């Protein structure tokens, strides 16, 4: 697994394509909403939370596609499948790479978003990184599974969001609810946090178990 992850990090350090495009896209989405919505609406925690997650989801789609497109060139994914890893390990490495790159982008984008939205600083914001990380883990687990399927089809750019977005609905609702509560400084909605955690556990394990079926010819 570390060999695969090392290779993905090395590729990114060499090209810097993935991080740069994710950061620019996420920031542009936030800016479009900042200009499009009135300041009063932007101050609503629900709107702010939704905006944060819309930016993350679209940047995440790009990240997922990029993760598997580099494997398509020169048939590299076949080379990976020839190696004596089991497919579950390949899934875990790709998943870990997506979590890493999306987290790094969010480390930059989330504070900027909070500044643009004029969110009041409070102690409750300290848990925001944890909520974002839980959302990224669930998104990456399911996304890695579907990106591996979609990348070998001709309509991959269309197919991935069409397959993935409806299935991400529970995760996104939970993530927005928890983020909104954190931004409002309200009590944690425990049920939505549990949904977020359950989604993460469920799809990391599912992806690990069924990835061999997904990557078959």
């Amino acid at each position, binding site marked *: 697994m570390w060999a695969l992850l090392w*290779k993905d990090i*090395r*590729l990114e350090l060499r090209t810097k394509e993935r991080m740069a495009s994710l950061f620019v896209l996420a920031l542009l989405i936030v800016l479009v909403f900042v200009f499009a919505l009135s300041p009063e609406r932007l101050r609503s925690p629900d709107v702010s939370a939704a905006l944060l997650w819309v930016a993350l989801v679209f940047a995440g789609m790009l990240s997922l596609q990029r993760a598997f497109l580099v494997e398509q060139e020169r048939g590299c994914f076949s*080379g990976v499948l020839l190696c004596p890893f089991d497919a579950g390990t390949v899934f875990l490495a790709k998943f870990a790479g997506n979590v890493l790159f999306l987290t790094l982008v969010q480390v930059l984008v989330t504070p900027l978003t909070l500044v643009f939205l004029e969110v009041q600083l409070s102690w409750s914001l300290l848990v925001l990184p944890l909520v974002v990380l839980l959302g990224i883990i669930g998104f990456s687990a399911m996304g890695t599974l579907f990106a591996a399927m979609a990348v070998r089809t001709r309509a991959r750019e269309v197919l991935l969001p069409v397959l993935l977005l409806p299935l991400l609905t529970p995760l996104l609702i939970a993530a927005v609810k928890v983020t909104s509560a954190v931004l409002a400084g309200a009590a944690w909605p425990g049920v939505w946090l549990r949904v977020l955690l359950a989604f993460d556990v469920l799809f990391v394990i599912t992806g690990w178990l069924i990835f061999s079926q997904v990557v*078959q010819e």
Partner: protein
Amino acid sequence: MNNWVIEAERLSKTFAWMPVLSGVSCRIGRGEIVGIFGHNGAGKTTLLRLFATLLRPSAGTLKLFHHDPRDAQVRRRVGFLGHDSFLYPDLTPVENLTFYGRAYGLPQLAARIDAALERVGLQGWGHIPVRAFSRGMEQRLGLARALFHDPDLLLLDEPDTGLDPQGTALLRVILAQARSQGKTVVFTTHDPAFGLAVCTRVLILHGGVIVWQASGNLPSVETFGDIYARSTQSASRMEH
């Protein structure tokens, strides 16, 4: 126990209802160098990809080293070079081989990488991204990658493609070394002069079926040309 490295029984492969291989049976033993000839679309690449475990057969059984080919320990003993080099173009040869070396858990990587690059005549090119390489250089590096973990079974799909005369000579040396070390090599080629010079057994594949094979005293290039034309024509007549 016998020394079969590949045991294929009635292997068939169908893509989108189109049969590409139809009941191929063959056994390939330790130390054999097998050359597979055939027209484009005869099923050569599909057969090699099945042997490499990159495809699953639609019907029939395949064993490598007497085991299920999907076993990770079996895959560790197989080296494959296909039409694609399986090399990351944005990484350098050293980085690509480091990745594959780590994936196979190889020790003393730096020394192995130097030796591998020297073996294929790419010493001095180790730190240049593969994207800058010519087709022939990438093919040499692909060969180094396939050989890097010292596989017992080497599967090469048209390995002479893109190689200059020096590269082809190098390939002959590598195949001769593999033979002397008791490795098994299965390769496809369209060049009878190259193929007949290095192999110990020849198969002709046509329409997804083995239509002719020989081992031991192999025919000359001219005689093989006649045999190839006759066997593929008669197989075509039978199909119609």
